């Protein structure tokens, strides 16, 4: 009715508290840390604790603060441009994440479509089946593929005993294994949005297309598929963005030549203890992911707005 027109509201005291607690939490523990990443990316690595300088202390006063500001440098970023390793890592990440997303879409779309064609009574069970792997440990799901793909693993064991091959397949420790691992791990993120996007459509739309002379296939390509694209888009972003920064999959399934930026960051941090370089890697990764991140945010907000 006439009430509830969109308008800016003044919030009461109780409402402010409700807003402030999660808001401040996220500002402090999610947003603010990026400032420290940015700051340390401008520092220099040293062999002490903490392993970078300058270290600002509030007690030192304004003059020391200004003096230390002068010690900030772009040297970590310089390293990123000098050494090919980093560029190769960024490109490798983008390539593998994009390929995995494409392959994933090709696998997930038919599954999601088939789910929408299942009898109503099956649907809840199918949805649970599609999400459940997400609830089981990521690490374990990746580990399962080591068991399968290793040279002496279950897949080679099976193929050899069936005499389909006579040399073990070399999949483990290659980019192929990384692709399989990423596709597998992120599959639930793809199936669900696509399923929702197809399931939301009025069944009459396809019927109308058929009534107007479209074949089953062309009704799909010209009605169902275009209408499901927002779901495809949402799922693809949901998979692509974290996949770019993936560490576990390339580390456990990839070879030593599998260059992904998440793994490079990890090594800078844990193996080389080079915090400034690790931070610079993170800053550049964020910049690379900025556009997909903004697209994802806009997409999610639009979905949640229309739902209200």
């Amino acid at each position: 009715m006439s009430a509830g027109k969109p308008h800016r509201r003044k919030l009461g005291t109780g409402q402010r508290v409700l807003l402030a607690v999660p808001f401040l939490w996220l500002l402090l523990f999610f947003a603010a840390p990026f400032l420290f990443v940015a700051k340390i990316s401008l520092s220099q690595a040293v062999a002490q604790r903490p392993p970078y300088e300058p270290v600002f202390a509030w007690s030192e006063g304004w003059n020391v603060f200004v003096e230390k500001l002068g010690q900030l440098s772009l040297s970590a970023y310089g390293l990123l441009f000098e050494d090919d390793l980093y560029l190769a890592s960024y490109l490798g990440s983008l390539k593998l994440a994009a390929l995995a997303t494409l392959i994933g879409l090709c696998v997930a779309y038919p599954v999601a479509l088939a789910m929408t064609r299942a009898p109503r009574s099956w649907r809840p069970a199918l949805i649970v089946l599609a999400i459940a792997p997400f609830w089981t440990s990521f690490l374990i799901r990746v580990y399962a593929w080591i068991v399968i793909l290793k040279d002496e693993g279950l897949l080679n064991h099976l193929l050899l005993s069936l005499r389909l091959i006579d040399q073990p397949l070399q999949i483990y420790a290659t980019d192929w294994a990384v692709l399989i691992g990423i596709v597998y791990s992120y599959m639930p993120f793809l199936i669900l949005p696509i399923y929702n996007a197809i399931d939301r459509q009025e069944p009459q739309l396809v019927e109308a297309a058929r009534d107007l002379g479209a074949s089953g296939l062309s009704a799909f390509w010209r009605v169902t598929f275009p209408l499901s694209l927002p779901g495809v888009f949402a799922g693809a972003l949901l998979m692509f963005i974290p996949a770019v920064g993936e560490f576990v999959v390339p580390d456990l399934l990839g070879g030593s030549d599998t260059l992904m930026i998440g793994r490079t960051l990890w090594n800078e941090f844990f193996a080389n203890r080079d915090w400034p370089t690790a931070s610079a890697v993170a800053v550049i990764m964020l910049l690379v992911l900025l556009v997909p991140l903004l697209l994802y945010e806009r997409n999610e907000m639009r979905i949640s707005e229309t739902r209200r």
Partner: protein
Amino acid sequence: MTGTLRKRDVAILLIGFAFLYVPIALVVIYSFNASKLVTVWGGWSTRWYGALLDNAQVLDAAWLSLKVAFLSGVFSTILGTMAAIVMSRYGRFRGRLVFSSLIYAPLVMPEVIMGLSLLLLFVALDMDRGFWTLLIAHTTFGLCFVTIVVNAKLAGFDRSLEEAARDLGASPIGAFFQVTLPIIAPSVIAGFLLAFTISLDDFVIASFTTGPGATTLPMRIYSQVRLGVTPEINAISTLMIGTVLALVLFGFALSRAFRGGGGAVGRA
């Protein structure tokens, strides 16, 4: 759609779900393998579970992970439910865009970035890394998942139910606890379970934000996996899968019980 499941669709579903489940099933099956060689079947046995019970390191790590998962699940649920109310009820307030960006971004943020940034914050704040920093880190991303789950439920919530409670004499807080919360309880429980399992699973962020003496189960598993595949890892994995499965089933039963008479919420 009318449910005209053709043979082709059945085949796609079977292949799709086989892809999702065969790897997990293999881990579970081989955890009962008597042989020490992972790929050779040596008959059924539970010896690796027995071996686990003697592994104090694994048990300590599991206990720590469960503690962190439970507590961060609770905090995430409280904060996330608050955030969901803000998201679904406040309309357009100043800062809404920033607020919802902060909710959505952690869901896709690469874990190495979140882990590194949180660590640098803890270092800057001079906090001792360990149990508490783990708890903070896990609560931070857990609360976003809870918010999404609860917000979806609140978006379909008939606000006149709350108004009816207020009209009948309930205070705002009374209306929330007597009417809103019982109705959204299934999604709050689902949110808690999600936050719990994500915390239990987390390896990357935990590696950054924990300190000496606080090794979580995924960290322990990871270091064992790096040394090579062993039947013991299969056994731990199976136990983790079993724990999560039991929790999810328990959660389903619990939300059923809350819902009582059935799916009345959508219709009211």
